[in-house]
């Protein structure tokens, strides 16, 4: 029997028969539906919450509390005229392809996220009709790398969209976007390494299982810095405010999606918010224990409690993203690049070294406080040197001097 490299789900032990295929199909269907509904709700949530934070009311008329506003917008967009650039200035084939390159990675990343399950008692597995399975679609042993790989692919959608529109502002937006996303991917990956050092595994199921006991969340086990770096880096990856230079209406009209209309724009819109929900889910999985939470009653439905806690945590993150939008002004492009390269990457690198040194000290029996002090001093020293270098460079640049 040939091994299937993509799942260490207990479902697949013993071969793949019709039952297994049906269960996976069910999981895919449920996850797809959940994701689509959550995107719709996320868009509504953003509009309502942003309005509340800015003294307004948001959608109120369509449906109770304006819940069906997203649906109404989707229907309206569906009926609009579909414009395509002509092939002399733009490229209609790639224009058509680009929204899918943004949308599909968002779906795919969600497949490795554990959305429920009781990790305290049952190791996150549920047993239905004699089949034990995990509450996630797939659990590859390199789950987190899969996430990184797909978020690298999301850059393509935006880059190609802007270029294929054949017009200035989209090209601006897409060039800025690709530079921004590529820079922050490095910070994303490095902050992830801190989590991996603590969890010792790349599989999302095992990362969540490692945080199962309530005091083991990676949030504080890695120190808070990797979480903050990951939060900032993922906000930049998602092109959310304050890093939304890419689609800044006040500056470059719509950026890469200026020329898109009708259903293609709807796909971009959908893709962006789907990415928000998915990235929130990843952050919850990595740092907040995923479905981990107290189970006060109905112990047999522990897996359902897992789903509830997971959704609450994702909701908290969506709230945070909207809060960012309401509270922060936009970063200028050079400030954005400085933040990514000169602050986040060195910080995460230094933090990884410190974490590994502390781990080593614990396992080798060294004097832990001493090691901690040395790490801290080292970080401070490196930080000061870096700051001095950056400041001197900035001073020279502002004074207009070149370098010899």
């Amino acid at each position, binding site marked *: 029997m040939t091994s299937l490299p993509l799942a260490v789900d207990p479902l697949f032990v013993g071969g793949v028969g019709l039952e297994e295929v049906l269960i996976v199909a069910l999981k895919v269907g449920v996850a797809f539906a959940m994701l689509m509904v959550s995107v719709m709700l996320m868009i509504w949530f953003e509009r309502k919450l942003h309005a509340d934070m800015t003294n307004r*009311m948001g959608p109120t008329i369509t449906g109770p509390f304006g819940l069906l506003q997203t649906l109404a917008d989707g229907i309206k967009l569906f009926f609009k005229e579909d414009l395509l650039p002509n092939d002399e200035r733009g490229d209609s084939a790639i224009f058509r392809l680009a929204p899918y390159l943004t949308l599909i990675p968002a779906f795919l990343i969600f497949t490795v996220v554990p959305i429920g399950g009781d990790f305290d008692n049952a190791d996150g597995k549920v047993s239905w009709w004699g089949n034990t399975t995990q509450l996630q679609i797939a659990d590859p042993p390199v789950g987190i790398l899969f996430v990184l790989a797909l978020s690298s692919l999301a850059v393509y959608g935006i880059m190609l969209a802007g270029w294929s529109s054949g017009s200035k502002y989209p090209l601006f937006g897409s060039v800025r976007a690709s530079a921004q996303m590529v820079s922050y991917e490095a910070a994303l990956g490095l902050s992830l390494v801190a989590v991996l050092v603590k969890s010792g595994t790349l599989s999302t199921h095992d990362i969540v299982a490692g945080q199962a006991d309530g005091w083991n969340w990676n949030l504080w086990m890695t120190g808070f810095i990797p979480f903050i770096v990951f939060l900032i880096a993922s906000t930049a990856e998602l092109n959310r405010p304050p890093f939304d230079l890419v689609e800044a209406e006040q500056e470059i009209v719509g950026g890469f999606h200026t020329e898109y209309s009708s259903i293609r724009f709807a796909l971009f819109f959908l893709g962006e918010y789907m990415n928000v929900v998915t990235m929130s889910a990843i952050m919850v999985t990595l740092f907040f224990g995923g479905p981990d939470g107290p189970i006060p009653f109905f112990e047999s439905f522990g897996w359902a409690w897992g789903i509830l806690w997971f959704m609450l945590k994702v909701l908290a993150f969506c709230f945070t993203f909207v809060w960012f939008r309401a509270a922060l002004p936009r970063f200028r492009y050079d400030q954005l690049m400085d933040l990514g390269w000169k602050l986040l990457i060195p910080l995460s690198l230094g933090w990884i070294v410190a974490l590994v040194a502390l781990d080593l000290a614990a396992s080798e029996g060294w004097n832990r406080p001493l090691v901690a002090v040395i790490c801290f001093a080292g970080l401070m020293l490196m930080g000061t040197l870096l700051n001095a270098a950056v400041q001197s460079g900035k001073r020279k640049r502002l004074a207009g001097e070149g370098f010899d």
Partner: protein
Amino acid sequence: MGIFEGLEGFKLTFGKLFDERVTGDYKGGRFDDEKREKPLRMHGRHVLNRYEDGMEKCIGCELCAGVCPANCIYVRGADNPIDDPVSPGERYGFVYEINYLRCIHCDLCVEACPTQAITESKMFEFSFTNRQDAIYTKEELVVGDDGQPKHLPWEDWRPGEDENTSAWMRATSPSGAAEYIGKVAWSGELGYGIRAPEAGQTADLAEAHGDAEDMAGGNH
């Protein structure tokens, strides 16, 4: 990096969640809803006024079209038929159209009109589905036989919106006659009669009335 100043924003926006909302539910969404009070001199849809005896005030002079910065008024004058004059005077506005896709409601036309024929009401509800319908013709613009602006089928008029459409007063006499220079006078309007002068205008109502009656309906 001054990053901690940025955190003030978070406190503020979070606090706003518990504050009262400034924008209320938008009123007037449906025909039976309450509508907000409109300012007295709001610029809305134009109306072509008529004198108390039913004659149209518009003399087809095309001054409004000439002054319009958006080129949205199309006027053509024609000679008044001898036995059935439309306006007091020699000519009247035969074709009068306003293109509301172009109109910016600046009211320069209202300032330019020598007879206060064109004024703006408070009605702002335009509705058309093609460019041809956007051009309101004289039939739609001219006031009805009762002196009130016509209630077009898509418009939702509320009480008080068709009042005071002719909100301008002339500081000098419209006829140019020397005796009336400096005297504030209103011409009579169909359905409204003689308007009372506004605050700060002439206190001598009787004089104003007397002059007005002389002028109304007379040929210049």
